[in-house]
């Protein structure tokens, strides 16, 4: 499916607009969705109800309100960890706990792409709790290299990498 706006790039963001009870679907590529977001962000000011705005973006029953926008995704249940259900989250515009990001991933991801223009952190990594993430990243890149050596039938190098990976994995288990 191609983007309704530019008709060039594939549509990755699907928006259901409900205006005066009339439902219409808009399918946008990331770039055009971002441009839409910029339009909206012009309205940001001190008194702008950002929570309500986000709630509108998240809300699956926002159709009751006229002129609201909601993401066209199925309605999930509740977070096992904090007990927050999707209704609460969409009303407050706030997630209940760190695990809500996982639990409501299919709702939060498109929202992040739209509000933040990105869904991947490239900044600071905490030293202690981020330690395993650093190791994971290293193991991933070694595995890719290992595969390369296997493909090239360079088994000696592959064996060396395998040992290296095992060593790192031991470090992670500790």
């Amino acid at each position, binding site marked *: 499916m191609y983007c309704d706006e530019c008709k060039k790039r594939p549509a990755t963001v699907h928006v259901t607009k409900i205006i005066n009870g009339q439902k219409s679907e808009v399918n946008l590529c990331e770039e055009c969705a971002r441009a839409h977001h910029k339009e909206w*962000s012009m309205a940001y000011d001190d008194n702008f109800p950002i929570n309500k705005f986000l709630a509108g973006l998240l809300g699956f029953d926002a159709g009751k309100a006229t002129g609201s926008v909601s993401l066209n995704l199925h309605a999930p249940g509740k977070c096992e960890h904090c007990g927050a259900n999707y209704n609460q989250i969409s009303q407050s515009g*706030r997630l209940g706990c*760190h695990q809500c*990001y996982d639990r409501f991933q299919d709702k939060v991801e498109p929202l992040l792409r739209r509000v933040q223009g990105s869904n991947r952190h490239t900044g600071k990594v905490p030293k202690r709790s981020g330690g395993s993430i650093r190791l994971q990243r290293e193991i991933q890149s070694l595995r890719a290299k290992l595969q390369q050596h296997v493909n090239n039938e360079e088994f000696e190098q592959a064996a060396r990498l395998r040992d290296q990976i095992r060593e790192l994995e031991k470090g992670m288990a500790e």
Partner: protein
Amino acid sequence: MRDRFVNQALTKWMEGTGKESEIVISSRVRLARNLCNIPFPNVASKAQAQAIVGQVEAAIKDAEIEETAGDLIFVNLEALEPLDRAVLVDKHLISPQHAEEASGKGLILRADEAVSVLINEEDHLRIQCLFPGLQLEEAWELASRIDDLLESKLDFAFDEKLGYLTACPTNVGTGLRASVMMHLPALVLTNQASRVLASLSQIGMTVRGLYGEGTDATGNLFQISNQVTLGRSEEEIIANLVVVATQLIDHERMARQVLLKETNPQLEDRVCRAYGALTSARIINSQEAMTLLSNVRLGIDLGIIQGVSPRVLNEMLVLTRPAFLQKLAGRELSPFERDVQRASLIRERFSLDG
């Protein structure tokens, strides 16, 4: 010790020092952080909220943190009177939301007030660094150091893909909101402010008027901050904002030169009338005071008014706020009484310099 933060009006960022301090009033960096395995403050139970306050209080009592970050004082907000909390809001040390419902909330302050850590506001932790003038890099470095120190004792909620997890998706990633408070009277006088500032929202910056209703900036003060917190590194966010602030400083300086050259008598009249009103008024509301103070400050910066400290605007920003006036009076004041008190305080302040 605790009372000092409330009773002492002046705080570091009002000193009027730091780079570009004739245009940039203050630089602020805020980092949102949450602890693992405890619901965010909007969902956490009272017991969970108190447990967080306890954990953070214990973490800052660690000697290493005090050594690096300086003297940190823990304040339980429940123990403060509502008026005292309002004073801390006026000093930009805590947010209005944090002051409103004090139950299960805490605050860590450094003695010089450059650092404040809000516990259980929207997120478990909000690390804030507030410096005078344009010092965003410095504020970020200090905030990051305090973040490291707290992280060495506390488990922060962090996701490999999404970064630091926050209650509101608009803060996820770096959790970093950096902002500069700028005094831009010449851009406003030359009718360039709305155009220039509107263009900022197109490059991912948010502009707000300080203490203003809606978008109306009172006293020609504007707060410019980054909108996006995910997909860019902290250094990129800070560098972008520095570039934007520097451009605004250049624009403002050019506009000031234009004003000086072309409309000298009108400008002098505006500035001197403002000075006259501030040193003579017996009743003055907050909005009028801010407008006049902004004009006087411009007059000081352009050399039209001499012998008045440029700090006068920065100080009066806080001193003439309702909570401070009531604190000084030692009782609750009606809006009319506040206007009288405000006028008298301003006259007193100007007579010190004059």
